[in-house]
């Protein structure tokens, strides 16, 4: 296969070939970045929460009666909920659950020195203190959520308080390592302002209610504080397929136990729905990104095929002459394939540079990380394949041109 005749032909179609090269380059640049953004979003939405997601359902109730004893109310409610067939366990929390956006957090320091440093700096940053998400709840929360205790124990019944601050806590492994790097965290006393909180257990993972950035998303802490507001969120654990039925039964059971309340249907969800709701924008974005990347590739394929088609028509006579003087069908086929390969190669070469430039732009505007370089060869391979596929049909039409065409005038 000789490259020189191809190059000299392309020189005749300088402008058109340049435009096609540019199109390939822009497609390559955009598709590489889009693929990277998709990968980032997929990574974001598949973060584990650490709880038994597909077995949980959540129902929210606000008491509207006056002067009710909230503790008694919760005990009765939980008994009624546990009596629902299919409910394996139930617990109440004030409002926080992983990925439900209702976060309460507090500055926690590993030692008195760190606390003093934080006060002196008037900031958590740089003091060694951390701002974990705080989860509260009734006894049975650890079991209901299906949290995995890797050290220590669950809370004892006597440790639960309704008013004021508890003296013990269970922290996530990530938080334990951040507070006490290289030291056993179990049994340590953390400082929450002037109070001590002793770590009695460590769970593997428990995500925050609202994600911030990867480094702090797993900093959570559970403490044995019973919910004490009129609004309370009940968490129910059941078999995955029972969840819808359990929720309906739970609403009826709660209203039967005490009709003086509001059960908002909007806040009656399986945990799967909560998770989907939290990441809805990301899933939409993934869909849009994929659609636009496919659209771009499609338009580029159309462009390559359309132009190749045109060139084949235009050169029918010269193809006939080449065939008449001894070129095989294969020669003609390879000619067009090689021509396409040259254009796409030039395109991806420029495209790789554009992709990096675009990535740098996106990094300043959208806090996107640096594009890993291996995306570029993969993108190049994809465009080569796309180019060869779209040129195949016109090239075969060219190969089918009869040598006799040479003798006719076009």
């Amino acid at each position, binding site marked *: 296969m000789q490259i020189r005749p191809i190059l000299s032909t392309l020189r005749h179609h300088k402008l*058109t070939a340049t435009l096609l090269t540019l199109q390939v380059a822009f497609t390559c640049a955009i598709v590489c970045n*889009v693929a990277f953004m998709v990968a980032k979003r997929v990574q974001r939405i598949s973060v584990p929460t650490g709880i038994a997601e597909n077995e949980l359902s959540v129902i929210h109730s606000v008491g509207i009666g*006056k002067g009710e004893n909230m503790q008694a109310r919760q005990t009765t409610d939980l008994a009624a909920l546990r009596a629902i067939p299919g409910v394996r366990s139930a617990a109440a929390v004030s409002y926080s659950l992983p990925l439900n956006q209702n976060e309460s957090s507090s500055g926690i320091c590993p030692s008195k020195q760190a606390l003093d440093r934080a006060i002196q700096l008037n900031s958590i940053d740089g003091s060694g203190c951390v701002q974990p998400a705080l989860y509260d709840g009734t006894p049975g929360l650890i079991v209901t959520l299906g949290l995995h205790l890797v050290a220590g124990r669950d809370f004892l019944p006597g440790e639960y308080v309704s008013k004021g601050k508890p003296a013990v806590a269970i922290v996530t492994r990530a938080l334990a390592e951040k507070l006490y790097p290289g030291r056993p965290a179990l049994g340590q006393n953390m400082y929450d302002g002037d109070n001590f909180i002793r770590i009695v257990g460590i769970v593997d993972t428990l995500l925050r209610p609202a994600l*911030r950035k990867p480094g702090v998303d797993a900093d959570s802490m559970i403490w044995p504080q019973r919910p004490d507001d009129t609004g309370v969120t009940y968490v129910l654990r059941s078999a995955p397929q029972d969840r819808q039925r359990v929720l309906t039964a739970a609403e009826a059971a709660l209203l039967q136990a005490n009709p003086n309340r*509001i059960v908002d249907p909007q806040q009656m969800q399986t945990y799967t729905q909560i998770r989907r709701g939290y990441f809805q924008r990301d899933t939409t974005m993934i869909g849009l990104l994929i659609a636009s990347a496919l659209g771009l590739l499609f338009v580029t394929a159309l462009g390559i095929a359309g132009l190749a088609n045109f060139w084949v028509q235009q050169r029918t006579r010269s193809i006939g002459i080449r065939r008449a003087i001894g070129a095989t069908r294969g020669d003609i086929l390879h000619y067009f394939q090689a021509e396409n390969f040259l254009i796409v190669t030039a395109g991806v070469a420029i495209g790789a540079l554009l992709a990096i430039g675009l990535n740098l732009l996106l990094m300043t505007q959208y806090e996107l990380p640096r594009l890993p370089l291996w995306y570029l060869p993969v993108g190049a391979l994809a465009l080569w394949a796309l180019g060869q596929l779209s040129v195949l049909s016109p090239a075969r039409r060219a190969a089918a041109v009869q040598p006799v065409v040479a003798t006719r005038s076009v």
Partner: protein
Amino acid sequence: MLGYYLNLALRSLKRTPILTGLMVLATGLGIGASMTMLTVLHVMTDDPLPGRSAQLYTPHLDPLPLEYKLRDDSPNPTDDLTWPDAMALLKAHRGVRQAAMAGGSLLLWPGRSDLRPFYVNGRYATADFFALFGVPFERGGGWSAADDAAAAQVVVLTETLARKLFGTGNAVGQTVRLGEHDFRVIGVAAHWVPKPLFYADQTGTQYSDADLFFLPLSAAVSQKLQVSGNRSGWAKGDETALTSANMSWLQFWAQLDTPAQIAAYRQYLVDYSAQQKALGRFQRPPTNAKLYSLMGWLAHENLVPNDVRLQLWLALGFLFVCMVNIVALLLAKFLRRSGEISVRRALGARRRDIFVQLGIESALIGVAGGALGVAIAQLGLWSIRQRPDDYARLAQMDASMLLGTLMFAVVASVLAGLLPAWRACRVPPALQLKAM
């Protein structure tokens, strides 16, 4: 002559139906995607109160202590005003009209057995609120400054809520139980929901929220009604009283008609801050006080999510690639017709004539692509309306956007045709004719 060119263009396009189809499809996809996102951006950054927004301004003070550190993940306390500051601005009366306000969510007890109690969102405001924003009334009206001073338990309902509670009967004069207090209905406001709800606290969902009731701010404070929205405090220890001088939670808007009034108000804010600083309450420079216009405030709040901007750039990038594609295809197509063009040139057509003829052909592709683009954009907007985002339901194309889409498509395709047409009309006729 134009008819003749049109005829020629149609013939030429018909001769290569697949290529024409491809170009129309590429234009349609690019224009459709771009217009979908441009429409979303257009409705999100639209003027919420046309005709009135130019006179509306919101003052902002900086009462934060020097050592206070702003955090990325929590709201800026200076976005709202404290109770003492808002009351001082109100009392100074430097605007034509002014009102302080805050959001509230209250449990409403309908006096009917067939309706269970439910939560409603509304606004606690001072008397000028209705005149300031031009809230239209169906019956009755707002309350007076005297009602504000007396913390009167009166309420204005919106027409939707009044109908839900009292059917078609007259709601004015009736009593509504909100939270634990009875309020007398003194007015029914017609449906009035600015999009976005610019005067609300910026932590809410401003494109989907609506106020269903309005009641005096003084009544809300004296009855300690539930305030929704952000409350930022900066005192040592917990200080949560609404009247605290160290907690911001109120929004404030004023009507300023002339540039002189605006300048005077700006100066007043600086003077007020300086006076507070002299008293030892403020610590930061008095020039931190700001006065935003309505549209300026919306720009400052930056309500358009990053994802939407990214989607717009993606769509425009897509359009750009489509257009490069069309330039290449048109170029190939026009150059292939060098023979025909040369014959026309030889018969007396000027370069300009050829250029116009080819331009019309590109414009025709633009018209067809634009029509397809409108259809694709409608589809795209429909899919956006299915999203649960708070701005989703606004995603509608109005007549101006519709016309704009077609114009956009024609302009884009004519631009795409410029280079190929220019190249084609510079073909030397003699050379071509010889080769034929």
